[in-house]
C-alpha cells in the first residue's frame, strides 16, 4: 500500500483509522473490496514511527483503528512533493523480457508458451476488470479507475502480441 496515498487522505482533515479505511474502499470500489484491513493500519503505524503522522488515541484505546491520525509538518511536505511528481508507475517489462531470453538461451522452456500463458492470464484479468466496470455507474471514481486498468492491460496485451510475433519469427528462422 502506497504510504503516500494514506498521507494524502489525511491532508484534508485528521481521521480515525476506520474512517480512512472506509474512504479508501469507497474510492476503490470492487478493487478495494478484498483490501486487507490490516494493510491500512500497518501502514499507519509505520508512518507514525517515521514521524509523518501523529496518532492520538482516545482515552482507554490502543487499537489503531480507534486512533485519530493527523499529518505532521514533515508529512505535509511529503504529500506536497508527491503531488508534484510526474512519474507514472513502472510496469515490470524488464523482468518478463529477461525471462523470455533466459528461457530460450538455456532451453528451459518455449518462450512462445510463456508468452501465451501470460496472455491468457492478462486476458482473464481484462475480462474481470471489464465485467467489474460494467457494474459501476458511468463517470464514477470506480469506473474511471477500472477504465485505466483495462487500458493498461490492453497495452500490455499489445506488447505481448508483439513478443509472440517476434519470437515466432525467430523460431521459424532458427
Amino acid at each position, binding site marked *: *500500500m*502506497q504510504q503516500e496515498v494514506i498521507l494524502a487522505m489525511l491532508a484534508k482533515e485528521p481521521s480515525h483509522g476506520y474512517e480512512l479505511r472506509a474512504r479508501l474502499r469507497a474510492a*476503490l470500489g*470492487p*478493487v*478495494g*473490496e*478484498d*483490501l*486487507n484491513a490490516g*494493510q491500512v493500519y500497518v501502514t499507519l503505524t509505520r508512518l507514525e514511527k517515521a514521524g509523518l503522522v501523529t496518532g492520538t488515541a482516545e482515552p482507554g484505546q490502543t487499537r489503531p483503528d480507534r486512533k485519530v491520525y493527523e499529518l505532521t509538518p514533515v508529512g505535509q511536505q511529503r504529500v506536497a512533493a508527491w503531488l508534484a511528481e510526474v512519474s507514472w*508507475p513502472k510496469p515490470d517489462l524488464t523482468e518478463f523480457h529477461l525471462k523470455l531470453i533466459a528461457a530460450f538461451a538455456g532451453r528451459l522452456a518455449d518462450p512462445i508458451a510463456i508468452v*501465451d500463458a501470460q*496472455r*491468457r*492470464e492478462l*486476458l*482473464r*484479468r*481484462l*475480462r*474481470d*476488470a*471489464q465485467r*467489474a466496470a*460494467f457494474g459501476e455507474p458511468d463517470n464514477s471514481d470506480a469506473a474511471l*479507475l477500472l477504465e485505466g*486498468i*483495462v487500458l493498461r*492491460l*490492453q497495452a500490455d*496485451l*499489445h506488447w505481448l*502480441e508483439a513478443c509472440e*510475433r517476434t519470437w*515466432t519469427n525467430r523460431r521459424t528462422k532458427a
Partner: protein
Amino acid sequence: MRTYLDQPEDQGVNSLLSARTLCKRYGRGDALVRAVDDVDLDVETGETVAIMGPSGCGKSTLLHLLGGLDRPDSGEIKLAGKRVDQLGERGLARLRRDAVGFVFQSFHLMDELTAVENVELPALLAGRSPRAARKRALELLSRTGLADRAKFLPSALSGGQRQRVAVARALANEPLIVLADEPTGNLDSAATLEVLRLFDDLHEAGQTLVIVTHDSRIAATADRMITMRDGAFVDETRLTGGTAGSLSRLAGLEG
C-alpha cells in the same frame, strides 16, 4: 418463419456451427494467397467465440465464409447440422436471411432510412408482415437502448449508436448465430464501450456470437478466444471460469 430449419437434422452433431478443413485461396502461382488455410472450428449454442489476429490474416474472409457471403474453395460448413457450403444462391440467401445475422465494421446502414426502417428491413425482405416487422424492430431497438432514436437517420446518430442499430438489424430475423466483423473497428473508445456492453447483454441472453476483432477488450468478453495467423488457427484460449486473482493486485495496490 424458420424455413431454413425445415429440413431434417443430422444425428450426433452437438455444435451449432462446425467447419472442417475450410480453404479459400486467391490468385495463383507466386501470387497465391491462402486467405483461409485448412481451418476447423466448432461453436456451441450460446457460446461467444472471438477470433483475433493481425490485419490480413484472413479472419474477415473466414467470417464471410461462415456467413454465406462467400463460398469456400474446399471444406465443409454445417449450421444446425445441415451442410451450407454447397448451397445454391437461393439457399445462401435464405441462410443469410433466417439463420445468420451479420454486423460489419463500417455498419453498412442505408443512409436514407431511419433507424427503425433499417432494422425492419431484413424482416420485410423475408416476407414478414409490415406490422410484425415494425413491432420486432422497435423491440430490438429498445433492447439495444435506442428506443428514443428510432426515427433518427444514421447521419444523426453517433458511431456507437449506428453500430448498435446494425446489431439490432442483425437480430431482426432471430438468427441462430450472429457474426460480427471488427464491430468496433471504426469506433472511438466510448462508442466501443457501448457496443461491448451490448455484446455482453447478448451473450447473457444466450445468443451465439462469433466476433472477429483485433481489440482485446472485445475478445475478453468471449468464452473462447482463437488466434489466427496467415489463414490458420494458431492458439485457442478458454476465458471462462475463475478469476485470475484479486482485482486489487491488478491495480497494483498490494505489496
